[in-house]
């Protein structure tokens, strides 16, 4: 534990100072017209903030409960650590957004295996690797439990005789109205994946012209507003996803399917983790809409949409696996 803290402190301090150190000039100039690129302290700040936030989170929950009058001992140390972490996290996010609004050159990887590629893009893909593992752990846990349950499917398939477990799909898939939120959500995510592709395409299209169709021209009058409006459409679809998710969860809880059961626990954790990803994506997109409306996205800085788009498409991909596994099966 002590060694972990020492290593952690080393990476935090060294990472911070390394990030604010000016880079050598010219070696990664990709001619995009921005000034010298910067090292950013934001990632290390956000990671540190998140570390402290999670370290003290248990104390945060206990203290909040105590403040609400629930009979539990407060943990003020944990509460303070968690709050400090949250503040550092917000500072990191604020700094990241400030830097993004100013704009900087894309840093290009010099070594293998991503040599010549934008570091942010490579970083996003490496991040997505870790995300795949997170969802793989949910699926492997679900599969392990599911193969042990005698569900309606197993009975129908003649593999056991009496139903001992009710899954979310048992409560959802038999009625079109109960399956509707999940089904609509599937379409909402696919459409939102396309709208963000359109936002990126519009941002990078130097020859973009308003449509000749009147109503489309009113919706997308200029390139800058078209990008912004495509992003707004994406946010609306993502928000629809969250709203329908809440409706669906409310229905399940009203049916007695809650997190207290084994089937409920894996369902709510897996779909909740996915919903959290959607929610975080919405927060990032709010910033992107602000940027699209003020600074604007164009062929020079449109990478931001592309890299966020990778995350958003991954969220869609995860749903491609979650929907059949948890709603249809």
């Amino acid at each position, binding site marked *: 534990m002590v060694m972990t803290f020492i290593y952690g402190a080393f990476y935090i301090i060294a990472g911070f100072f390394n990030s604010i150190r000016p880079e050598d000039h010219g070696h990664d100039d990709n001619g995009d017209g921005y000034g010298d690129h910067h090292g950013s302290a934001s990632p290390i700040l956000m990671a540190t903030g998140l570390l402290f936030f999670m370290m003290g989170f248990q104390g945060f929950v206990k203290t909040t409960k105590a403040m609400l009058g629930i009979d539990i001992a407060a943990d003020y140390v944990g509460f303070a650590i968690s709050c400090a972490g949250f503040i550092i996290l917000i500072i990191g996010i604020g700094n990241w957004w400030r830097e993004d609004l100013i704009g900087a050159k894309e840093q290009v990887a010099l070594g293998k*295996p*991503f040599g010549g*590629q934008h570091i942010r*893009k*490579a970083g996003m*893909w*490496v991040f*997505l*690797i*870790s995300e*795949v*593992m997170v969802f*793989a*752990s949910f*699926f*492997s*846990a*679900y*599969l*392990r*439990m599911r*193969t*042990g*349950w*005698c569900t309606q*499917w*197993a009975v*129908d*398939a003649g*593999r*056991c005789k009496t139903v001992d477990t009710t899954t979310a799909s048992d409560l959802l*898939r038999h009625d*079109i109205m109960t*399956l509707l939120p999940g*089904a609509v959500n*599937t*379409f909402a995510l*696919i*459409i939102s*994946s*396309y709208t963000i*592709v*359109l936002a*990126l*395409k519009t941002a*990078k299209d130097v020859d973009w012209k308003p449509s000749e169709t009147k109503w489309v021209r009113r919706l997308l009058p200029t390139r800058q507003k078209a990008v912004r409006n495509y992003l707004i459409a994406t946010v609306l679809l993502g928000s629809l996803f969250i709203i329908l998710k809440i409706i669906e969860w409310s229905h399940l809880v009203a049916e007695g399917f809650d997190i207290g059961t084994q089937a409920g626990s894996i369902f709510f954790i897996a779909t909740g983790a996915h919903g959290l990803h959607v929610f975080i994506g919405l927060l990032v997109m709010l910033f992107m809409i602000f940027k699209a409306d003020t600074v604007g996205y164009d062929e020079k800085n449109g990478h931001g949409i*592309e890299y966020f*788009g*990778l995350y958003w*498409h*991954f969220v*869609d*991909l995860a749903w*491609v*696996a979650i*929907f*059949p596994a948890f709603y*249809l*099966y």
Partner: protein
Amino acid sequence: MSEHKYTGPVAGLFQKLADKMGKDVYFVNFLILMFFTFFEVAAVYVTGLSVNLVWAILIGIGIIKIYGIAGFFMHLKGDPIIYTRTAIFPLLFAALMLWGIGLSNPASIMDLPNWCTPDWDYSYVTN
């Protein structure tokens, strides 16, 4: 993301459809994804299909959708091969997890064939 002509047996088909419609390949991909999602939901409501067949349909459609999203929307088809390798790399570990954990339930009532269940020592279950 750059505009270019896709080639290959499947991507080339997407491109041909796009050229025929006078749209870009992303639009065609979007339509295909929408179509298969309708098909996916409908498959569960079709009566008379065996559980295994429904599962096969769901997995098949899932693969098509993953190809469409990762290949075109995430642009793996047009980007350098290192990104495809990066995307495939964790799938190996995911597959290991699904096999080693997901299919290792000693009390499985699904009667999984021996070839897909790890031969673990389950003594810890009773201990």
